């Protein structure tokens, strides 16, 4: 197990390098000169001299690979530069906003688990019953619902009409309910479908037939042979989902005025605050990669083929 984790971590190194290269290249996609943007945001008229000074300060005159290594060196030391707007270190800002987003994503993940596991399992076991049909239709609609629209519908009904829950801001647990639900419903729909399919697939496996032929009790077969196997693809996907939720919270945070990274990044985009955008990309990628690593480790504990390196 330890060897598996070590191998997995080592295999991350090239990926992380690739990520850093990509985020570095991103800033050079910018059709305008960052120095000019910096000056405009600092309310200094972008004269040629001023631009030249800032360019020198930012190191934009050095050769590209030199810039990359300088930047990488700083990044390794968690220095992402300073925001053009607030002039504060970007890392500190991101870390300031991140807990709120994490809070939101974790709450949604919990909702997703609570909905999708029982519903997925039972709709697979009672395939084609009324329960299954209804769940499938709901899952279908849930997966097609735009989250920004769903949030307005929820706000309108639960907050404005019924006055049950607060619609905007962060504070009490009640504040969490609407944004977390909005964020969760789409993913819950996807997971219910995924788990259902995975369960049905495993129910048709030869080892389930053999388990029945050995006279095992149906409950044991469902739990030990079907569900455990069915969970593996779901766990792999969960690592990704949490990442997608962190990203997907951009829209939800904007609707619910949730003070997280998502709101911060959108305002930064409008301000063309390039260091923040760049740091955001890198930061999210690293979080995402780590989440996937975590999911892989869980899978390895579940599946001996991964742990022990079997073929096929």
């Amino acid at each position, binding site marked *: 197990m330890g060897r598996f984790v070590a191998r997995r971590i080592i295999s991350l190194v090239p990926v992380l390098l690739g990520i850093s290269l990509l985020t570095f290249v991103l800033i050079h996609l910018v059709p305008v000169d960052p120095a000019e943007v910096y000056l405009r945001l600092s309310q200094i008229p972008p004269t040629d001299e001023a631009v030249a000074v800032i360019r020198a300060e930012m190191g934009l005159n050095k050769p590209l690979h030199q810039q990359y290594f300088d930047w990488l060196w700083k990044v390794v030391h968690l220095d992402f530069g300073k925001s053009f707007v607030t002039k504060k270190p970007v890392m500190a800002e991101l870390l300031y906003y991140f807990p709120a987003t994490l809070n939101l994503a974790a709450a949604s993940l919990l909702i997703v688990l609570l909905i999708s596991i029982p519903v997925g399992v039972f709709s697979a076991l009672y395939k084609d019953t009324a329960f299954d049909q209804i769940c499938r239709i709901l899952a279908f609609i849930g997966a097609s619902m735009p989250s920004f629209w769903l949030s307005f519908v929820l706000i309108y009904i639960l907050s404005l009409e019924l006055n049950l829950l607060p619609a905007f801001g962060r504070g009490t647990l009640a504040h969490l309910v609407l944004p977390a639900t909005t964020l969760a419903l789409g993913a819950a729909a996807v997971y219910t479908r995924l788990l259902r399919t995975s369960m049905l697939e495993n129910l048709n496996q030869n080892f389930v*037939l053999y*388990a029945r*032929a*050995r*006279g095992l*009790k149906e409950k044991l077969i469902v739990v*030990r042979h079907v569900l455990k196997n069915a969970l593996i693809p779901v766990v792999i996907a969960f690592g990704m989902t949490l990442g997608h939720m962190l990203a997907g919270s951009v829209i939800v945070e904007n609707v619910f005025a949730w003070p997280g990274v998502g709101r911060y990044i959108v305002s930064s985009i409008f301000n063309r605050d390039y260091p923040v955008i760049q740091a955001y990309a890198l930061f999210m990628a690293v979080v995402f990669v780590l989440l996937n690593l975590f999911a892989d480790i869980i899978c390895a504990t579940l599946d001996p083929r991964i742990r*022990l390196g079997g073929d096929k």
Partner: protein
Amino acid sequence: MNEQVVLDVKDLHVSLPSMRGVVGAVNGISMQITEGKVLGLVGESGCGKSITCLSLLGLTKEEGWVIAGVAKIQGKNLLTLGPEEIRKIRGKEIAIIMQNPLTAFNPLMTIEQHFLETIGSHLLLSKKEGRNLAGRYLEYTGLSQPSKLLKQYPFQLSGGMIQRVMIAIALALEPKVLIADEPTTSLDVTVQRQILCQLARLKEKVRTGILLVSHDLGVIAQMADEVAVMYCGCIVERAPVERLFNQPLHPYTKALMASKPKMQKKTLQAIGGQAPSLLNFDGGCPFFERCHEKSCCCSHYKQELVQYDDKHWVGCAKFAVKQRMLYYEPA
């Protein structure tokens, strides 16, 4: 002669719905499995061998499937038992060895877990006793170091090893009947021979009756005491093994034997055409189209086994007619 019939199947029918009508997968087969003897069920793919096995275990309870007939084990009719009663019989009274051993094991569980859950479903044994039982049977099947093996996962074993594990699991509860559904088809020839020998030895030890299903006449010749030849969901001939190989009566049996390459250069007698569809099976002779020996009366013949002599039954119009005319022709 004190032969005890452990499983008595009478007139088993299985039909299943398909997009274009009802398929008669098994059309009234009868057979007896005797304690300590091997009944070989031989036939080509699609003749209903596997469905027969599964229906005996009550594992064909799918929507639209119709199963009729009687299959008696210890006075109980398997086909009418409730789910919990049949569960108690599966694995305990009737065990099975399947064709694809590698896919039959749950990849997430060790061999030991497979053993223990099977034993635990039928007997009240402690883990330690269960483990001992498992180890003992693994040794019987010729596997060395059973304690190490028990801790391994299915994917760590080779095809031959895992098939032996399957045999050990099947026999550990000393079932009355063992169904071996193409037990060696997916294995290499050298391993196949070993597995068959091992199975024959264990049969003597446990005194179980075996239903050995195979498409390979070689497997049957090596293992069986009695043979039933199956074609299109019907048994077309049934006889003791020596008798069948010496004097096959049904044209299909003869053709099947002639079409198998036998370490000689003689031209093979292939059967022309292919097996008919079992859709809406009408009960006539299923081999009619491909038969070399058909005559005018065949088309009206209703497929059923008639007794040719003491232990030899055949389902062919030729013999049915002769018998009725009290006309006996030495073969």
